[in-house]
């Protein structure tokens, strides 16, 4: 045991002397988490997207088109859309260069056609390189279209009156007959207000998740969701790097020399696996500490999380012990290790949240340590004990260890 601890201590000192690779592998998840957080963190309450650049072309310049244009001028819409009013030629030129998400074109004769109760078409020219924002503009215009259609039909008599007046000279308008018409319109407005004030049907939005969760998503929540996936991915990379000694000792002839001492193969194997485990746990905890201090990530009950981290680091050390017992040399380990880690991470949810993945990807993800660690961390954030994750990682880790030790003994004895 003393010899095992001596080797372990020596390994730790050796890796601390040349820490750059490990430091870089620790920077990557933190940098990626920070970037994802900056991009996807909710900016203002109720507005998850940056303002959408919209070009507005009013070829009509009539009453109805001005009403439509002014609908973009209310505070809520100003937060959502960044509107530039322009003419059609300039707008088309800009859209051809992808300078806005969408261009709304109000056609010539829009007001008159509406007053005549004729169907009219609003054109939404969409930026083909964008996948989401142009559809938001189109759907907003669809909602406006329903409201305009309703308003025109609700006030069809008044609309006809306005239409008739538009054809008259100002001095020929029969002002004295307009009084009763305004009276009728007023009654309709009063009747409509029964449905509009308060709104007959409104929506009360809320965000839900597992029991005990906070209702509002904050940047810290986002970091907390992203960082465990990134951390476990780079834990795999780091432990792989640390445990490559199992091969390099053999290739460099150090193993042969070490075996001339009273050191037993099992002690050497134990020290290497324990080294991967302990150092893996340490780097994981450094990432966790950084996430807590810089990103203000809440991990849930720390005892639970520490337990999960210990088991995950153990699994990783056991896996790479077996891996290094099976591969022939460092080149093969380098060539196969990274693809395996990336495949684990891709399917396991480190690169993309499992619920966003196709079902087949999700099914494969169940056999990866990433998935169990991420699921476990999510449960702990909700204050729950990650029993399933712990059992799966611990049992599969023990099986890997049971397979790795005899295989490594054969390699060490050579």
């Amino acid at each position, binding site marked *: 045991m003393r010899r095992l601890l001596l080797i372990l201590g020596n390994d730790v000192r050796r890796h601390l002397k040349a820490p750059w690779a490990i430091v870089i592998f620790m*920077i990557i998840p933190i940098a990626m988490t920070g970037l994802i957080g900056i991009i996807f963190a909710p900016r203002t309450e109720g507005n998850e997207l940056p303002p959408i650049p919209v070009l507005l072309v009013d070829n009509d310049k009539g009453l109805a088109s001005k009403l439509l244009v002014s609908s973009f001028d209310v505070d809520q819409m100003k937060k959502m859309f960044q509107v530039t009013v322009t003419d059609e030629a300039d707008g088309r030129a800009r859209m051809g260069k992808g300078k806005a998400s969408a261009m709304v074109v109000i056609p010539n004769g829009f007001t008159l056609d509406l007053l005549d109760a004729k169907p009219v078409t609003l054109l939404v020219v969409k930026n083909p390189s964008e996948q989401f*924002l142009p559809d938001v503009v189109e759907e907003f215009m669809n909602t406006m279209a329903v409201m305009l259609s*309703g308003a025109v039909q609700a006030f069809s008599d008044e609309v006809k009156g306005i239409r008739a007046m538009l054809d008259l000279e100002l001095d020929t308008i029969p002002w004295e007959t307009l009084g009763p018409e305004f009276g009728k319109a007023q009654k309709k407005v009063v009747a409509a207000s029964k449905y509009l004030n308060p709104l007959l049907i409104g*929506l009360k939005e809320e965000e839900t998740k597992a029991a005990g969760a906070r209702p509002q998503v904050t940047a810290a929540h986002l970091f907390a969701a992203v960082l465990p996936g990134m951390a476990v991915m780079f834990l795999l990379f780091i432990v792989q790097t640390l445990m490559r000694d199992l091969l390099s000792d053999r290739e460099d002839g150090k193993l042969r020399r070490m075996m001339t001492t009273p050191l037993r193969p099992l002690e050497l194997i134990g020290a290497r696996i324990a080294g991967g485990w302990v150092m893996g746990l340490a780097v994981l905890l450094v990432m966790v500490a950084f996430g807590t201090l810089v990103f203000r990530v809440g991990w849930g009950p720390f005892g639970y999380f520490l337990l999960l981290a210990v088991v995950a680091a153990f699994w990783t050390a056991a896996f790479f012990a077996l891996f290094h017992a099976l591969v022939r040399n460092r080149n093969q380990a380098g060539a196969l290790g990274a693809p395996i880690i990336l495949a684990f991470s891709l399917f396991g949810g480190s690169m993309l949240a499992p619920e966003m993945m196709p079902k087949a990807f999700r099914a494969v993800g169940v056999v990866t340590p990433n998935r169990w660690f991420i699921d476990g961390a999510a449960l702990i954030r909700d204050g729950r004990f990650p029993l399933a994750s712990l059992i799966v990682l611990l049992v599969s880790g023990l099986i890997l260890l049971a397979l790795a030790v005899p295989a490594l003994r054969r390699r060490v004895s050579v």
Partner: protein
Amino acid sequence: MRGTKRILHVAAVDLRLMVGDKIFFFWTLAFPIMFIVLFGFLYKSSDNAPNVAELAVVNLDQGRWGAYFIGQIETPGLAVTVTDKEPAGYSRLIVLPPDFSAKIEARLGQNLAFKKREGASSQAAARVETRLYQAIARTISELILYGTGDLAKFLDGHAELRDLVVVKGEFPANTVTVVPSGFDHSIPGTTIQFIMMMVLIYGGVSIMEDRKKGILGRMLFSPLSTGELFRAKLLARWLIGLLQALMLFVVGKIFFKLNLGSVPLALLVIAVFALAMAALSLFVGSLISKEDTIIGLSVLLANMFAALGGCWWPNEIVPPAVRTVARISPAYWAMDALHRLTFFQGGFADIALQVGVLAGLAAVLTVVAGKVFRIRD
């Protein structure tokens, strides 16, 4: 002339060694294809492959208005599931309370609980929400129009609201004619990302190993000069990037109907980008002597450049400040140029700036890499 021949020979040997590596095709083809499929499905959109947003409706209403309102919500592209109790799992859910009809008939305002599961697609949620507002607007419009008198009898027969105003969506003239598929977005992004990863890792590690093992030194015993050796190594790494892009584009064309716009111009963009990455790999490989450090730095650079450059997610959702910072990423310029070709059917004039920036970067990196290029440690 002989010098050129020697450069080509050394580059060809390097290329053959890299392609001969068993894992080469995993990195250049298999793994990028997994990415393409994953992100392609994620970005899949619109007419080509309609995205269906899910909405669960808990209809507890004891009257007839609940069913009527659900009818107003239903539309292609929205998968509405009606239940009488809150399901265990859902992405979005709306509850029609027991007194939904009673309140409408009494003309009393009410707010419907609309629940969105945290972490579910915000794009789908926005679509569902918009549709709910449209349904509300339509229902209220019909009530204002025809809802005089007893509303209990309203549903027995009434005229429907006419859609006087309709919205027509289209793309700008001389751009795309069909809605771009998710793969049109994911293939260029994945290609750019993996050119960075492959060229930087393979290129950097192999030049470092050749130097440490004395292979570079031994090569100088041949008629090769140091300059020729540098150019040969640069050429080999550039060819790796080009080869990878060609393979992914061919796979994209055959299996995913990839639309690249002008293929020669797309290859020009890739060529200039790959040259910049080849020079960067020589720079990194010449400065660093540890394999793990080169791999770590390459992964860090490739991931940060890819994320900033719009390889992972659409740049449209990125805050304006991050979009400005993204200009430091070579991937940003390459992606911007490929977008102009793919989605706007652009010509050379449309991508001249982007190609110019990448060419300038390639020139600077080549000079710097040439300065730090070492034959021995």
